[in-house]
């Protein structure tokens, strides 16, 4: 059963030049207990999607259409007060560079306790006990609760942020580039921690990252975003082995692997501006197999194989082919 359903979500930023269509008609569902990866180049709208899910879009951004159903309730219709309660209680987040999101002049224990007291009706003593428990769970020695953020390394701060996000036992965790600033060895530790916590708390995770290798390691399903839209959505093995969209193909073939020296491809050009995105398929100006129909008609995002969704006019011709030579 899906815990979170996103239907035809549109989130635009209204600037002088017009509406920046950062998220334009995005539909996906997050199953209970799974990790869904959201991948794409910078500016493709993956972080905006996260902010929109939480109803936290910064000015001048706003949700213009669509629904975000958390257990059947539409979050886009919630009043700010109700939403404040749902955030953290039911749906939590770890942001990009989150380790710098800690308040530098508060002890980390006090910061976690503050979050607990705001969201749960328990005594201060109980909150402190709960804080120590959660630190233990994420692998931070509870005696360090009296330390300040600068006394922790980057990886440890990220653990504290994860502790804070999970202390209210939310159903959904949105992690936006949670490991991007960390060394690989620390990243491996943090992702391992996330996976073990996921089993423990029956947590559903949306993992947003531009790093496809991390996606391959950590996700069950993957959505590939391009220019504000999801162009392909499938389980992780299908995305890496039987991808159907030329953009996914190019993206995956552009990543060097530690194992091999396969020739890398690069996608020419740059992602388009989103005030007036290209007509038809938004990828057509960079696509090696684009035809007239791609210029004129927007491809439908449809289920081509079981649970494998793709938006491409030529998807059926792509099976097992490398269109990037």
């Amino acid at each position, binding site marked *: 059963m899906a815990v979170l359903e996103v239907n035809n979500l549109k989130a635009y930023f209204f600037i002088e030049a017009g509406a920046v269509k950062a998220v334009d008609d995005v539909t996906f569902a997050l199953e209970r207990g799974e990790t869904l990866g959201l991948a794409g*180049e*910078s500016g493709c709208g993956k972080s905006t999607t996260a902010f929109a899910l939480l109803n936290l879009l910064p000015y001048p951004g706003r949700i213009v259409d669509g629904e975000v159903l958390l257990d059947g309730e539409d979050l886009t219709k919630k009043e700010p007060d109700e939403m404040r309660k749902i955030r953290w209680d039911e749906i939590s987040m770890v942001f990009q560079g989150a380790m710098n999101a800690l308040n530098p002049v508060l002890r980390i224990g006090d910061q976690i306790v503050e979050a607990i007291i705001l969201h749960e009706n328990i005594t201060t003593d109980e909150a402190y006990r709960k804080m120590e428990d959660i630190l233990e769970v994420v692998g931070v020695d509870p005696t360090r609760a009296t330390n300040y953020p600068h006394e922790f*390394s980057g*990886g*440890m701060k990220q653990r504290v942020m994860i502790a804070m996000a999970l202390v209210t036992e939310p159903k959904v965790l949105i992690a936006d580039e949670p490991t991007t600033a960390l*060394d*690989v*060895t*620390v*990243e*491996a*530790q943090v*992702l*391992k921690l996330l996976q073990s916590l996921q089993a423990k708390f029956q947590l559903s995770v949306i993992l947003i990252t*531009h*790093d*496809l*290798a*991390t*996606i*391959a*390691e950590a*996700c069950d399903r993957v959505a590939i975003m391009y220019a504000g839209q999801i162009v392909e959505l499938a389980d*992780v*093995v299908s995305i*890496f*082995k039987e991808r159907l969209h030329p953009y996914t193909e*190019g*993206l*995956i073939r*552009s*990543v*060097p*692997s*530690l*194992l091999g*020296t396969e020739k*890398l*491809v*690069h*996608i020419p050009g*740059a992602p388009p501006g989103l005030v007036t995105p290209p007509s038809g398929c938004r990828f057509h100006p960079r696509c090696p197999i684009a035809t007239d129909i791609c210029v004129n008609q927007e491809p439908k995002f449809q289920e081509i194989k079981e649970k494998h969704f793709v938006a491409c006019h030529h998807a059926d011709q792509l099976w097992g082919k490398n269109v990037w030579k």
Partner: protein
Amino acid sequence: MTATETLIEVRNLKKYFPVRRGFVAQLVSREQIWVKAVDDISFDIRKNEVFVLAGESGCGKTTTGRVILNLTPPSDGSITYGGIDLTAITKQEMKALRPKLQIIFQDPYESLNPRLSIHDSIGEALQVNQLADTREELLQRIKMAMEDVRLFPPDDFIYRYPHMLSGGQRQRVVIARAIVTQPEFIVADEPVSMLDASIRAEILQLLKDLIKKYDLTYLYITHDLASARYIGDRIAIMYLGKIVEYGPVGRVIDNPKHQYTAILISAVPIPDPTLTHTRRAPVGEVPSPINPPSGCRFHTRCAYADEQCRLEEPPFKEVEKDHFAACWHWFDPKQWEDE
């Protein structure tokens, strides 16, 4: 010119930074405290190769790159470039060598002056070094460099400012600025880590192509072993100011011998979900470079460390042709089998 001619020789290089302390702390103890960012490393860079210096943040790889270019003087040791000891020459002599030794920085959003046009950014190096006699020659050489980094057509870009360019285009300008003086050696410090994956491959390929065209040699500094494998010929792995292992890239990555190298490689994510592979990480955190551990620096985090590792620094041994490692207990893939 033989294939193995050495271009840069680094011997016993050390770079210590003094720790600034408060007034009271200085009264309590007179002893100067040092951060040992680079602590006694030696290696050769061969002509026309891509020599990779890899390691985690804080291991001293960037400091090494800067010291080699004499951007900051070493605390001890020598750097020889084509027979000249860079640590022993005067400022004037160094200035004359500058065009031959260049650097490409990590962040193209920060390394270009936003108030200089592309023409001025690239041309500055030529003007400072008086490498172009006339305005026409200057323009000619700027355009040539732009074509070589595939900023086509140069006339479209030459009078633009950095904010009008994408990240990939900016990094091309940074590369053009480095090659315009016809250098022999370039330190490339994480040149693609700030770029999107789809652009990275293109920039890596460009750096490779320039080797032949400009007769270049690179020191490629990175934390990303996958890109190191793609572009590198030989690699040195650094940990806490020391090189622990070095050799041909493929051999070091496929057959690591130092326990740290092995664990670092296992931690790298592989973009293939069908492969079962356990990402490992050393226990605990990197110790402070102010008081690095005795013996083997990795012993505090190594599962196989014993008394010898704590007391004696391991020497380099040639484990296979051209492949050296300094570890008392060679890594063997079997040690992870029964986990």
